C-alpha cells in the first residue's frame, strides 16, 4: 500500500542531485574524450592521464571516506543519506570515467590491475544498490510484523509442545520428531546465500503424514510441525535476504581498499616514471 510520501530514499535524495552531478561529469568527460582529436593546444595525454586520473583518485578518496563518515556519529556535515547518495552516483560515474582515463586499454600490469579492481569494486557496489532496492520490502513482508526473536520463540514453543506429546506417540513417529530436531538447520554457511537449506520441519511433517497414524497426538504433532515449518521457511528466507543485504559489503570494502592501494601505487609510478614521457 502506498504510504504517504514522507520518506526520501538515498537514490532520490534531493531530487537526484548527485545523480545529475555524476551524469554531468560523465557527459562532460565523455564529450571531451570523443572529441579529443579536435581539441587543439591541449596535451590529451596530460589531461586524460593526469587530469582525469587525479579526478578519479579524488573521487575514490571521497568514496572511501564514506566509511569514516558513516561512523562519525556525533559530528559530520549533513545526513549520511546524502553522503550515500553521492557515494552511489559518483561510484557509478567511476565505471565510465576509469575506462576513458585508460583509453579502454587493459594490460596485464599494475595499471591494468588498478583498472580492473576499481571496476569490480564499483560493480559490487551496484550489486549492493540492487540488494538495497530489492530486499527491504521483501524482508518486511516476510516478517509480517514479527521480530527475529518472535519467530525463534514461536519455534521454541512448538518444540516444547511436541516434546510433551512424545509419550503418546509411536516409536516411528518419535523417530521422525527426533530426526527433525537433530537435522534442522535454519541458517549458516556460505551455501545458504544462494540456496535455501532444506526445511526439515516440512519434511518431518510430511513423513508423519505418510505414517498415517490415526491418533490425536500424532495429528496434533503434524499440525505443530506444519506451523513450525512455516516459521522455519520465514526464518530461512529472512536470514538469506538479510545476509545478502550484508555480504556484498564483505567484497565491496576489502576490494575498495585494495583498489585504492593499487591505484595509489599506479599513480605514484606514473608520477615518478611517467611524467617525463608526456
Amino acid at each position, binding site marked *: 500500500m502506498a504510504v504517504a510520501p514522507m*520518506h526520501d530514499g538515498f537514490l532520490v535524495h534531493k531530487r537526484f542531485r548527485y545523480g545529475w552531478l555524476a551524469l554531468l561529469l560523465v557527459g562532460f568527460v565523455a564529450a571531451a574524450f570523443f572529441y579529443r582529436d579536435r581539441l587543439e593546444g591541449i596535451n590529451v595525454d596530460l589531461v586524460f592521464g593526469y587530469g582525469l586520473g587525479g579526478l578519479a583518485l579524488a573521487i575514490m578518496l571521497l568514496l572511501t571516506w564514506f566509511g569514516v563518515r558513516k561512523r562519525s556519529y556525533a559530528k559530520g556535515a549533513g545526513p549520511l543519506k546524502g553522503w550515500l547518495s553521492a557515494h552511489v552516483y559518483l561510484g557509478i560515474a567511476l565505471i565510465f570515467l576509469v575506462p576513458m582515463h585508460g583509453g579502454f586499454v587493459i594490460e596485464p600490469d599494475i595499471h591494468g590491475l588498478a583498472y580492473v579492481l576499481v571496476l569490480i569494486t564499483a560493480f559490487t557496489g551496484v550489486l549492493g544498490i540492487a540488494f538495497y532496492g530489492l530486499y527491504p*520490502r521483501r524482508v518486511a513482508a516476510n516478517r509480517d510484523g514479527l521480530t527475529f526473536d518472535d519467530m525463534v520463540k514461536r519455534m521454541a514453543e512448538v518444540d516444547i509442545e511436541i516434546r510433551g506429546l512424545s509419550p503418546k506417540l509411536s516409536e516411528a513417529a518419535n523417530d521422525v520428531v527426533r530426526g527433525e530436531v537433530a537435522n534442522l538447520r535454519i541458517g549458516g554457511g556460505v551455501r545458504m546465500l544462494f540456496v535455501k537449506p532444506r526445511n526439515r520441519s516440512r519434511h518431518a511433517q510430511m513423513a508423519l503424514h505418510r505414517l498415517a497414524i490415526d491418533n490425536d497426538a500424532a495429528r496434533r504433532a503434524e499440525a505443530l510441525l506444519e506451523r513450525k515449518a512455516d516459521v522455519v521457511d520465514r526464518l530461512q528466507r529472512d536470514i538469506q535476504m538479510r545476509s545478502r543485504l550484508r555480504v556484498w559489503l564483505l567484497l565491496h570494502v576489502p576490494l575498495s581498499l585494495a583498489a585504492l592501494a593499487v591505484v595509489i601505487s599506479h599513480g605514484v609510478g606514473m608520477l615518478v616514471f611517467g611524467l617525463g614521457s608526456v
Partner: protein
Amino acid sequence: MGVSEFQVAIIGSGPAGLSAGARAAARGLSHLVLERSDGPCNTIFRFQKGKHVMAQPAHAPLRSELPFEDGRREDVLAAWHGRAEELGVNLLYNADVIGITGVAGAFTIALADGSEVTAAAVVLAVGLQGNLNTLRVPGAELEHVGYQLDDPDEYEHERISVIGAGDAAIENALALAAHNDVTIINRSGEFARAKKANESAVLAAIESGRLGVVYNANTQAVESDTLVLETPDGEARVPCERLIARLGAAPPRKLVEACGVSFPNEDRNALPEVSAKYESNVPGLYVVGALGGFPLIKQALNQGYEVIEHIIGEDVEPADTPLLREKLVAVPEWSVDAFLEAVRDRVPIFSELNGLVLRDTMLESDVHKFTDGETVLRRNDYTNSLYVVIEGAVCVHLDDEVPPKASVTLGQGAFFGEMGLISGRRRAATVSAVGDVLLLEVPRRRMIALRASVAAVRESMDREAIARSIQAHLAPGLDRESIDDIAATATIHSWAKGRVLFNEGEDGDSLHLIRSGSVLVRKKIGDHDVVLNYVAAGNCVGEMAMVSGEPRNATVAAAADCETIRIERDDFERLMDRHPSLREQIEGVRTARTAITERMAESPDQGSLIEFLVDQGGKEATDILLIDETLCVGCDNCERACAATHDKITRLDREAGPSYANMHVPTSCRHCEHPHCMSDCPPDAIKRAAEGEVYITDACIGCGNCQRNCPYGVIQMAEPTIGQRGWLASLVGGFGLSRAEVSEGPKQAVKCDMCMNLEGGPACVRACPTGAAIRVHPNEVIELITGES
C-alpha cells in the same frame, strides 16, 4: 490567676511540634510538649515499616533543630529522637488535650485525665493524622478493623480487605498482598487519585491476580469474618478476617474549636486561618504544621522553629525569604512582602491563595522584567509555564506580522500562556512587552497542583481560558464583550481515552472545541468502521451539524484523554451572527471535511494507518521516529549512532515496535505533549526543553517511576558509563579497544533526548544511510494521509 507554669505549651509532637519543642529547649524557654499517644511522632511512627521518607520540597531550605534528610522512616525517627533527648525537650505522653481557655500570657490547657497545664503561649501542632476518618457502619467497632498499617509482615495467610483508593491504601494493599489474600475496595471505578506509580502498580497487581478488587463499592457493614458491600451489581460479601480502612484524615475541628480557634467555613476539610506569624484568631495561640495548611514534613519542621522565634518576639523572617529575595534581584525596588502582597492584590486567580501557598508558589516561580517591545515568549516555543502580569502590560500577537495587525493587550493582573499549559502544545502566540512590564512565571507543575487544590484558581482560569479559546479558534478579531456571555454558558468536559463525544445519527445540539488531547472521527461505511479523520487540540468537532441542521454524520471518540469546551447550538448561532466570517469558515471546513470523507471512504486502509499511528503515540506525540520498511536495510547504524552519542547506551530499539503498511514505529521516545514520564518524578529530574525535547537530568535517583509510567516502553534503567571510544577503534570494530567502562553508580533512567545538544538533529536520523528513518510530528503524517492542510 497565678503565673503560668510554662512559657510555651506545644500540643502535638509530630514534626512541627517536636521541632518547636527542640527550638524552645535550645532557646532555654520553659516548655512542655503534650503528646496524646505514648511516643513522639505518632504519625510518622505509624508509617509503613521501612517507608522511604522524602525531604520535600527539595528547593526549600531546612531550618530546625532537628536534622532531616531523605531516608527510611526508622532512621529519620532515630535522628529526631536522639536530637530531642540531647536538647532536653520536655515531653509529656498520654496527654490528651480537650480544650484551652484563657488569654495570651495565661492559657489553661485542660487534659482528658482532669489535670491542667498553664502556659503563656500555646502552639497547636496536632496535624490531621490524629483525626483519621473512620468507618461509620455497623461493625466498625470490631477488633479486626484498623485504620493504620505499621508492619505488613506481621500478617500472614490472612484474608484482608483494604478500603480506599489513595496512595496509603494502595501501598498497604500491595505490601500485604505478598503474604496474604488481599482485596482492595474502591468506592469509584478507578485509582486516578493515587500517584501514577502507585496506580500502575496496583493495576498490574490486579491484572496478574495478586490482588483482588471490588470497584464502585460502598461499605455497608463489617461482620466478624465478612465485609458487606453495596455494588452496582447488588450486595457483595467479601471474606475478610482483617479490615484496614484508609479513608484519609480531616482537621480535628472539635478540638480546635474547643481551643477558641475559628474556621473560615463549614467545609469538613477547612483549615483555620492564621497570620504570617502562624498566630490564630486567638492572640498567643499559634497553629503550625498540617493543620496550618502545610502537610510536608520539612515545612512543619521549619514552622516549628519559626513559631518559637515569633513567640520570643524575634522578628525572624521565614526560612524561604532569602530565596524569595533572590527571585527579586532584577527588581531591587520590590521587597518580598510588597511583592507577595502585589501578587495577591492584583492577580485575581491568586487572590484566594493563603500566604504560605503563595510563598511556595513564588519559590518555584521566576520574576522577569521586560522593557518595551521585548519578546516574552515566542509562537511555537515549547515552553509550558504560565505568566501573570504584576505591573505593566503585554501585547499578544494574533498573527505573524511585525508589528502584528491583530493583537490583544493584557494589563495588570492578567495571565497568559495557559493554552500551552493545558494542551501541552507549542505556544499559540507571540507575546511582547508594552512599556516596562513585571511578570511572574509560574512553572507548569505548580500551576497544575494549584488548579487541582484551589477551586478558585481553577474556576477563574477556566472561565478565562474558555473565552480565550473561543476568541482564538472561532472568532479571532471579535471583541471580548461579544464572547464573554457565550463563554459563560460554555462548559468544560473531560473524556477518557475511547469515550464517545457523540454518535453518528444523533441530533447535533452542540459543538466541541478540543482544548487538550485529540479525537478520532469514524463512520460506518458498509460493514466497516472507517477512520475518517484525526482532529487535534485547537480544532472543533461537531460544527457541521450546526450549520447543516442535519444529524451527526460521524462518530467522534477521544483518541487520548481529552478536554473539550462544549458550546450549545443557540450560543453558537449567536456567535456566528456576531462574527459572520465564522459561518463562512465553518462552511469552508465543512467542504474540506466532506472531501476528506470521500477520499478516506475510498481507501479505508489509509484510515487504518491513521488509527495505527494514533495508537502508536500519534495522539500525544510531538515527534515520532518512523522507519520506512521498504528502505530500511537493517544495518542498525541508527542504534550505533544513538549509543555513540549517548554514553554507549542506545535509546532506541529499531527492530522492536509494531509496523503497519510498511511503516515501522521503533521503540523510541515520542516526546509526548504531556509526558507520562514527567508525571511522577520525585526529584523532578525530567524536563522539557524549549524545542520540545523531553530529557532526564542528572538529578535522577533511579526510582524507575518514569519507566513504569511510559506507555511506549522507551525508558530503560542503565548504569551510567564513562569513557569514550575513538572513531578509529570503532572502525576496527572495537574488539578489546573499548574504553567505555561501567561505573559503580546506581542505575539511572535513560531515554532519547532528540540529540538536543548535537548540531544537525537526531543522530539516528542523520546516521541512516538509506533515508529510512525520519522524525516527524505525527500530525504532519496524518495531514499527508488525509490530504488536509
